[in-house]
């Protein structure tokens, strides 16, 4: 356990010093929030009986930020470390494999929690979107289950990525369209029902719905067990695939 904290400390150092990881997981969601919320500010949308569009975008962008901090960031950084030979090198030490993986997942969850705070605060300060403090336990529960599940999916995804150069294209080709189709970038009342139906087959939509429900102040919000369960099932599937197909040695050479 103390080795895990040790590993996490150095993972955090390396993460915050890497300009690419900081840009994609921290700066990018913030920029997206500023763009969407500023451009569409003042509009209301037909979701949940009519809400401010900014109140829609805050949980939407938090959803995106959590997925970037976990699935996207892990898939890319693990492939880079694998192809550099660092994973193989680490396996030649007494460090148990689970410590390494738990360190990386822990790192992702820490960043995801931080992004929750950053986006929620920006939403409150810039766009007057209330932070639903009374829902905090539900929000944290959804976030942690989502972050863990998307971490597992990210680790599983590394098995499909053959090289460092292929990491960003493959990850983005998977995630970007699904962000659009799942109502992260375009509010779902403006999306055709066929699109939503398609997106419903993938966990981003479920995670977004579960998080949106938890984040919506008052009303009948709270835990959306159905969607959350789907996210968790995807997470477990990702975990099993990761255990079966994850490799520590470089694909090239």
């Amino acid at each position: 356990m103390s080795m895990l904290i040790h590993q996490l400390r150095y993972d955090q150092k390396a993460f915050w010093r890497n300009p690419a990881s900081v840009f994609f997981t921290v700066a990018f969601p913030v920029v997206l929030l500023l763009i969407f919320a500023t451009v569409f500010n003042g509009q209301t949308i037909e979701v949940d009986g009519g809400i401010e569009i900014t109140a829609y975008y805050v949980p939407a962008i938090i959803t995106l930020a959590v997925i970037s901090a976990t699935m996207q960031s892990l898939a890319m950084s693990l492939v880079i470390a694998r192809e550099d030979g660092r994973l193989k090198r680490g396996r030649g030490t007494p460090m148990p494999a689970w410590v390494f993986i738990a360190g990386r997942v822990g790192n992702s969850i820490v960043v995801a929690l931080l992004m929750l705070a950053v986006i929620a605060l920006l939403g409150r300060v810039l766009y007057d979107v209330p932070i639903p403090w009374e829902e905090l336990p539900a929000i944290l529960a959804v976030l942690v289950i989502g972050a863990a599940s998307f971490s597992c999916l990210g680790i599983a995804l590394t098995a499909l990525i053959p090289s460092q150069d292929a990491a960003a294209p493959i990850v983005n080709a998977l995630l970007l369209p699904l962000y659009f189709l799942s109502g992260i970038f375009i509010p779902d009342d403006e999306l055709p029902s066929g699109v939503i139906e398609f997106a419903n087959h993938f966990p981003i939509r479920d995670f977004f719905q579960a998080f949106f429900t938890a984040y919506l102040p008052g009303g009948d919000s709270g835990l959306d067990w159905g969607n959350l369960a789907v996210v968790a099932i995807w997470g477990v599937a990702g975990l099993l695939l990761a255990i079966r197909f994850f490799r520590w040695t470089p694909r090239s050479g």
Partner: protein
Amino acid sequence: MPEPVISIKGLRKSYGDTEAVRGIDLEVSRGEIFAFLGPNGAGKTTTVEILEGYRQRTGGEVAVLGEDPERAGREWRGRIGIVLQSCRLDPYLTARESLELYAGYYSDPRPVDEVIELVGLAGKADDRTGRLSGGQQRRLDVGMALVGDPELLFLDEPTTGFDPAARRQAWETIAGLRELGKTVFLTTHYMDEAQRLADRVAILAGGQVVARGAPEELGDRDSQPTVITYRGPDGEVSLATTTPVETLNELTGRALAEGFALEGLEVKRPSLEDVYLELTEQPGNGAVEQEVARP
């Protein structure tokens, strides 16, 4: 006779139809620097990765520190140090942080400052590894293998691609391991590296050991023929002889008596490089191992 640190008997490894390692026998004793010398594709990395526990052998017996690497656990990995043939360290950690990270994996690590000193990175300890030169990164890599204070170190081609100055510095670091009492298993395709560092060398070609012994005796160099070349009246002549003194005497006598010049006269003993090239030229094709006993 103490138990050998590495003991290999009849080691074989196949990838599909290709046999990369075709029956190797070796023993490495405690405190010795052992070099595994051979051209690319000879089976060096395959063998060393079997010893490190990364690959599974097809046949034969292997014991490293008394255990089978395929089944050895964390405690065993704490007793070995590994430098892979190619590994890029985390570019965003400093040299010191990289060592501290690895020190945390071992129960009784060597002090990080001491390791920095050992690998000659005292002035660079707080630079990020991405800013170190190739040679400095490699020495840091050796440091990361040393920080757990292992009994046995594997170095897979530690200086490939280095400029001469960086190689010399890496050699100093590796030679310094002897003073720490470490056993070192080194692979290289540089003859001079093996000669400079190793107590004993095994030359590998086509997955088999074709020669072994102390570097100065390797390939039975002393009994190899001397080659005499010159241009005489009949053109270019090349003679191989095991009795060069007599042959030269006879040759110069004839030249004086008959009044012709020995233009471009050269007397050449085979260099270590010649021996190495000859031994590794035809991999496996009837190569007969030449055993050289240590005096």
